[in-house]
């Protein structure tokens, strides 16, 4: 440390509080979880170190692979939808519209409702006997009888995606909107004078400028979707026939059953996937050059 002059050392004071909080309340539990994943940590058996035993069991576990496939497929469908809708809403709210403030508050509502509750709303919407979804389609004449939304794998998957997109698109909207506000209006004005149409302005001028914000939204939506839990827990609990069990839900069941080692190993693998995907995003987008 003495090698650093006082001046060089100063910037680190600015990030010290950040590191203290993260190390105490995230890193410490993570290190613990990593250790646990190398143990046979089952409440009803003596603890012992088994190194990669949990992982090798996991690789042979059909239920785990199924949940992993579901989770990745879910991300591949839900995240692009969220980004698309969120950005479109943000672009809209960035314009000079009447009642803009009210519109902004409206768009944020889904995200403001705790997911433990919003999942319940969707449960009611999809309710077979008196839910809103069946009420609408039968009264609009789209279907003869009620539809068993959660009854088929495709239907349950779509139901979960819709509920999740509804809940999280506003997150993207808020991020992108603030990013758009920081784009100098003169630039767009200039482009307009150069006879670019509004689509061209958006894609050629605005979008590249908000790339950092878009990347952050994409990163955090991906990471968050990898952990999807609440909506599924309430809507299907993994059904029908285990087709909608996410990896988090799978880990949760093992924690509940007292097998902390196995559950931790699932978490660590999920983490590895998240890490790999983030590295990929950052590499492809050349994020370093943006800072």
């Amino acid at each position, binding site marked *: 440390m003495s090698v650093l002059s006082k001046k060089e050392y100063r910037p680190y004071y600015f990030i010290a*509080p*950040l590191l203290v909080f993260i190390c105490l309340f995230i890193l410490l539990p993570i290190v613990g979880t990593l250790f646990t994943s190398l143990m046979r940590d089952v409440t009803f058996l003596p603890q012992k170190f088994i190194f990669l035993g949990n992982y090798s069991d996991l690789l042979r576990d059909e239920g785990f692979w199924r949940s992993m496939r579901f989770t990745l497929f879910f991300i591949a469908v839900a995240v692009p939808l969220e980004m698309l809708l969120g950005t*479109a809403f943000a672009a809209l709210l960035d314009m000079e519209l009447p009642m803009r403030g009210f519109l902004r508050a409206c*768009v944020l509502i889904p995200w403001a409702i705790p997911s433990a509750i919003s999942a319940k709303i969707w449960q009611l919407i999809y309710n077979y006997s008196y839910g809103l979804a069946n*009420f609408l389609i039968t009264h609009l004449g789209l279907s003869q009888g009620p539809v068993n939304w959660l009854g088929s794998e495709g239907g349950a998957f779509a139901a979960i995606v819709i509920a999740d997109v*509804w809940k999280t698109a506003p997150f993207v909207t808020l991020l992108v909107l603030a990013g758009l*506000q920081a784009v100098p209006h003169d630039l767009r004005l200039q482009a307009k004078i150069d006879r670019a149409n509004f689509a061209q302005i958006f894609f050629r001028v605005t979008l590249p400028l908000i790339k950092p914000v878009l990347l952050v939204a994409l990163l955090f939506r991906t990471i968050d979707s990898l952990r999807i839990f609440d909506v599924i827990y309430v809507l299907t609990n993994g059904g029908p026939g285990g087709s909608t069990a996410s990896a988090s839900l799978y*880990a949760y069941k093992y924690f509940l059953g007292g097998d902390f080692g196995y559950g931790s190993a699932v978490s660590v693998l999920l983490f590895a996937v998240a890490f790999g995907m983030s590295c990929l995003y950052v590499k492809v987008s050349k994020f370093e050059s943006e800072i």
Partner: protein
Amino acid sequence: MKEESVKKLLTTLTAVFMIGFAMTPFLYMLFTSVNAKPDFLEAGWLFTLSHYRDVLGADSLHFLDYLKNSILVSAAASLVTVFIASISAFAITRLEMKGKLFVLFFVLAVSMFPQVSMIGYLFKIMTALGLINTYPALIMPYIAWILPLSLWILVSYFSQIPKELDKAAIIDGCNEWQVLFKVLFPVALPGIFSTLLLSFIFAFNEFIFALILTTDFNARTIPVGIALFEGLHGQIPWGQIMAASVVTVFPIMIMTLVFQRHIIGGLTKGAVKG
């Protein structure tokens, strides 16, 4: 002219879709909260305010305690988070520092861990500190959990702001803190307010930590509080839950309406021209 009308049509369509998409489930929730039974679509309307009376009036539900806890915990967590994240983002985007990319990625990486696997360790930490069922037991982990997101958002906003701005300020004789508070903050205000709002909502929505780290209405927050409404065999008092949710959404609506002025107005054109 043709382009203008296409644009207008597109805008209107998006706006209609957006409102429908965002508001339909909310309105459904609102209607359920004022109906005697959740099957009002099929069985007919039965208007009542009794659910609101139950939720706000019954002492044993402790709904107002939960609401108070939620607001205080989320406000404290989000304010501290945004402050810490701002100074860190400032250091990362504006100061000469080795390993800034490492810090960014380290923070991002740790935020990827599934919460459910860590809760056992957090419980042990909080038990050791004697903080179970207190505000700090929630506020501190929330700060740590929201920091990565806040940091990344603020880094991305700060990096959008032309560096000439603070160079000019430094030439004028400002030190780092002055550059941060007098130059960057006013320009980055939309970003800072949206981060504050996002952080607040994040803390407001959190469930698992609150479930395990609190034990009663002295510190429990809304999401867990509402989970306490159900009956032993899963009887769901839809009306009460929806009434509680509607009441819960109001603080956030008000915050958004207050903040959105700043989200728009924070940016002065002159400043960005540089």
